[in-house]
């Protein structure tokens, strides 16, 4: 079964009220004349008399108006990291493939709900940028764009986030081994502007559990980092990397974003469900 088939029927509700005015599936900040009753409010001068609930008036001798929640579209931006660290392992580029699948899987869920999706790729050669669209072929365009990219170089994610408009949904797909802190700060700013931010951390299982053979590990984005990794160093490396992941996840969650760590050996459909699941039922913590 293809990835898209396994995600059919999935909905991805926004954690926050959408600010858009176009009708969609996400709860809107605007209160309008939707059929669903949301609440009653005492009539004030200036309210539309047609919203008066006459039956309640008859029962209580007080004038109340009916309020209903509107639903609107929520544009979703995907900011994908295509730096050299994503091209790991060198033979298979599993991290980049997993990031691509996660992006397309989440985009298909958003498009199924009618939400426009846009793409920003952190890549040295002019960063591909696709504005949010919901027309037919958007997913194919995203797939073609991502399929043509070979991760290389080192491009900052934070400036791409700074370009996003407030009130949208941002999904950052990265290994966060580059400018993690500036990116988190930019995400915090977006969160403060009532955007919904999801951080999807892609990690290779070789990074979680390196092989037993002694190697000299070199950072693909900084060749000056050349460290011997043998049996003695392995335990300390695992501890350091685990501690960093926990600390980073905590920082992102504290900022108000969701943090989902996905391994390259994980089924992408299952990982998409986890990302979506992390945004439902969670209390929104505003950044302070």
């Amino acid at each position, binding site marked *: 079964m293809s990835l898209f088939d396994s995600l059919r029927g999935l909905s991805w509700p926004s954690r926050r009220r959408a600010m858009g005015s176009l009708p969609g599936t996400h709860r809107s900040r605007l209160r309008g004349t939707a059929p669903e009753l949301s609440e009653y409010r005492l009539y004030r001068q200036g309210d539309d008399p047609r919203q008066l609930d006459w039956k309640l008036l008859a029962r209580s001798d007080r004038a109340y108006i009916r309020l209903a929640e509107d639903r609107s579209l929520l544009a979703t931006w995907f900011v994908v990291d295509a730096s050299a660290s994503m091209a790991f392992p*060198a033979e298979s580029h599993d991290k980049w493939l997993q990031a691509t699948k996660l992006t397309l899987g989440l985009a298909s869920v958003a498009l199924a709900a009618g939400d426009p999706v846009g793409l920003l790729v952190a890549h040295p050669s002019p960063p591909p940028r696709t504005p949010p669209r919901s027309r037919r072929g958007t997913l194919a365009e995203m797939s073609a764009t991502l399929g043509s990219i070979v991760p290389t170089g080192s491009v900052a994610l934070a400036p791409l986030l700074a370009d996003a408009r407030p009130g949208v949904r941002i999904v950052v797909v990265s290994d966060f081994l580059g400018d993690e802190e500036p990116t988190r700060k930019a995400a915090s700013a977006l969160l403060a502007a009532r955007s919904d931010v999801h951080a999807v951390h892609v990690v290779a299982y070789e990074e979680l559990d390196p092989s037993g053979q002694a190697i000299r590990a070199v950072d693909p984005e900084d060749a000056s*980092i050349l460290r011997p990794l043998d049996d*003695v160093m392995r335990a300390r*490396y695992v501890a350091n*990397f685990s501690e960093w992941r926990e600390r980073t996840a905590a920082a992102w969650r504290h900022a108000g974003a969701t943090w989902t760590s996905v391994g390259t050996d994980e089924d992408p459909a299952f990982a998409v469900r986890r990302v979506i699941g992390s945004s439902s039922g969670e209390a929104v913590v505003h950044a302070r």
Partner: protein
Amino acid sequence: MSFLAPGWIALAAAASLVVVAIHLIAWRLPRTVVFPTARFVPDEPARRAARTVRLADLGLLALRVAILMAGGIAMARPVFGSTPTGQATVIAIDKTAAAGDTAALLGVLRSIPRRDRTSFVVFDTTAIVERDDAAAMRSLSARPALASLSVGLLETIREARRLEHDYERVHVVLVSPLTRESFDEATVRMRALWPDSIRLIRVAVPSPGPIPVSIDMPSGADDPVLAGIRLARSNGLVAGTARVVRDAADAIDSAWVDSGRVLVVWPRAAAGAAERIDGVHAGDYTAIGHFIGFGVRLQTRSLESDPEPGDSGRVVARWVNGAAAAREVVRGGGCIRTIGFDVPDVGDFVLTPSFQHVAAELVGPCGGSRLFGPDVAPDSLIAALAAPPNAVVAKVTDDAHAPNRLAAVILVTAILLAMMEMIVRRQPGDRSLSEARAR
């Protein structure tokens, strides 16, 4: 299979051992791998190096050893065939040596140590190879001509080269009177064809006995030439029977020649002829003094020109400038010797020992006075014959140095293995590092 230069194989084996030692002992750094989370590896020196011997290393080691051994085998020049063993001897016998004491010669030949194989080369102006003593002695019984060492050495060295294929060492022995006449300009070059030393056994050739001395000449008392000849005869310098005529020869003189004796036609110079100071070589002697030179016509040619092919004459004296001064023509049993110069009537030139020696040569027997005794070659020539040459000029038979195709094939194989080693040497870890630094 055997090898012409087996030392190269030992050298290649030693180099291979060095390569094996380097592969086993050397500390190898772990391969470099691109690792995005390298920053989380503690920045400390490696506690231990990877000493595991990977299969790729063993393959590279085997390839390098194969390159060295193939190169060594190629340089060792392998040849198919059995390795020569044993020793052989080639005995070259100058036929003129048999002109003396045959028993002594046999004794000399028996004294030469015989090895696994002995060949005989009997030579004078031609050479013949015999395989046993009896055949060699039969060849020696033939009447010898004046031997040529060049001819003898050529055939001897050929025989020695043939025996080299089957025997480890070949000894060459030369039995000869080693007279001056047996040497010529080619003798030294022929000797250079054999790289090893040659054992020389010089045998004596006795003189044929006393020769009666009789010089028949006019009784002219005022003739300086005749006076010089008489003086030479009285000093014991003259040998043989000769008639000296100062005028034209007649029938009696012809009869003299036909009887197997020497007629010396020594014309007088014309009155008033110009004299000059010059020199004349005759035999081993040179007389320098006042001469009166003149051209003498011998039938259709002058005395000064050298004999043409087929001419039975030979030059017996030359001026210092190389022109012929006297010529001898064989006739019947004797010879006619014509002299192309005279001496002035005045002066004591004819009294000088040099002139007397020259005059003795000119009135000597047909063919020269050397027939009356062996003129042994100088020690320098004999030493050059015995000692190994400084450089072997060429090989008579070059079978051992024919192009070695097997060595060429092995050498090409070694080169191809070396090219393969350059490809195998490149490892994936190094490639990843270069890519990482390129980014």
